[in-house]
């Protein structure tokens, strides 16, 4: 059972703000997702090999060879705020 509290907790872990009046909407949606999972769990899969990835590919590697990184200007071009070559964010520790 998904409660409004569960919805709030999941939202907080995902840093999402959800208005009180929207909680029942998400509760119902999450509930139906879980019901679907329950439905899947009832399937007979003893003879089906587990899927861990939708692509039938494996062992994709890269050689350990250095390639150029971004220039400092490019790296900083994504920054909303910056200070002496660093990305600047609100203080996370008082």
């Amino acid at each position, binding site marked *: 059972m998904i409660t409004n509290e569960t919805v709030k907790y999941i939202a907080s872990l995902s840093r999402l703000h959800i208005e009180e009046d929207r909680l029942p909407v998400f509760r119902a949606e999450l509930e139906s997702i879980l019901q679907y999972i329950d439905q899947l769990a009832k399937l007979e899969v003893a003879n089906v090999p587990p899927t861990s*990835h939708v692509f039938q590919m494996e062992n994709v590697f890269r050689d350990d060879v250095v390639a150029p990184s971004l220039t400092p200007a490019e790296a900083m071009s994504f920054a909303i705020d910056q200070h002496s070559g660093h*990305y600047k964010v609100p203080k*996370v520790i008082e």
Partner: protein
Amino acid sequence: MDFETVIGLEVHLQLNTATKIFCACRNDFGLPANTCVCPVCLGLPGTLPVLNRMVLRSGMKVGLALNCTINTFVKFDRKNYYYPDLPKGYQISQFDFPIAKKGFLDFITGGQEKRIGITRAHMEEDAGKLIHDDAVNATLVDYNRTGTPLIEIVSEPELRSAQEAYDYLSALKLTLQYLNVSDCDMEKGSLRCDANVSIRPKGEEKLGTRTELKNMNSFSAVKRAIEHEAERQARLVFSGGSVVQQTLLWNEEKSVTVPMRSKEQAHDYRYFPEPDLVPFTLTEAAIAAVRGELPELPFVRLRRMVAQYGIMDYDAIILVSDRAFADFFEAAALTGVDVKSLVNWMNGPLMKELKERRCRVTDLKLKPLDLAALVRRVNDGTISNLAAKDILADIVDSGKDVDLVIREQGLAQVSDEDELGKIVDDILKEHPQVVEQIRSGKANAAGFLVGQAMKRMQGKANPKILNEFIQRRVMHV
């Protein structure tokens, strides 16, 4: 009631690959902030990680060295949390199919062998560095470290004291150094350790509530933090309280543990398979090939060297404490020189020279054959111990031939009986009362005469031969 401490350790090892785990950015320390970052390690939308093949290889090496089973099916998972050091909002790690599981590490603690279980070892990416800057009232982020390859090594909660934890860490570090997959430098952060600590009444099977200790910057800090935490928990339980599961930060200056604030430890990682990376299958042949490349590991080498050379555990521990040092010893021993003397010269005078120079034996010009030659010249009486130490101090840097230095500096001991005879006769004449003492049975009075003779010969005599010579002369002249 008697309590026992239960400790499990989580060690993070930064690998020394050329590039990061999922992108081709340089894997390097000490570069200016945000100069080795790219769209992949910055987690920009539309980018895809690709595994560095050397990381998987190092992961296999670490797993095999810790006697683990290597999983033939390996995949990555996302560990989700929001913090500014993690640009994607998740860390790519491994959850249910790590590279290695169920191993052990053997080591010596308190003079006894101990085996500690290794639960698992997995691959993951490191996070960025945060600087909390009061001057600008903000947190500054450097993403150079983001994507540095890590191996996390988790032990079973089988360690029973802070000292055991320290000895386990030392043995683990040594094993990892032999593999040459990391700097293993705790000060630089290339090796980091968190400790899970709980206490329980002796004889109790059930584990007590544990706390997690973080922020220790050296092995001795790990030891002190565990000691402190075990005492804190015992005091708490004795006074009727109970341990609360939480994460504690070790404060080295004040020697106390401080709880991390609850906001920071609200960890519910919601792992799920990483869709951007396909799985990996490892064949038994590939695993066997990596196993074949492993060097002889320190504990196995220790046991073999004790058996093969008949040396003490204590000496063997020093020899294997650096792979190159043990290699040097074994190369010198191959010449057939007396092994006991060789060990003494390695762990004594040579070690002293290394400590003075703060370097490894491979940094010296001295070669194993030179040390063997030096030891041989001491043992056959050509040079005195004292002269040999001077020669060693010279040849570690110059790499000169031992016999050449002996000749050049005239350090060979005088054992020519005629030459000795003249000097000794002079000394006997000068000290007739000492000669009388020796004749009347005080054999150790000869020590004074030996000293006098040595002085006159500027130390270039073998004191043992000189002593015998003087005794004979006194009795028969």
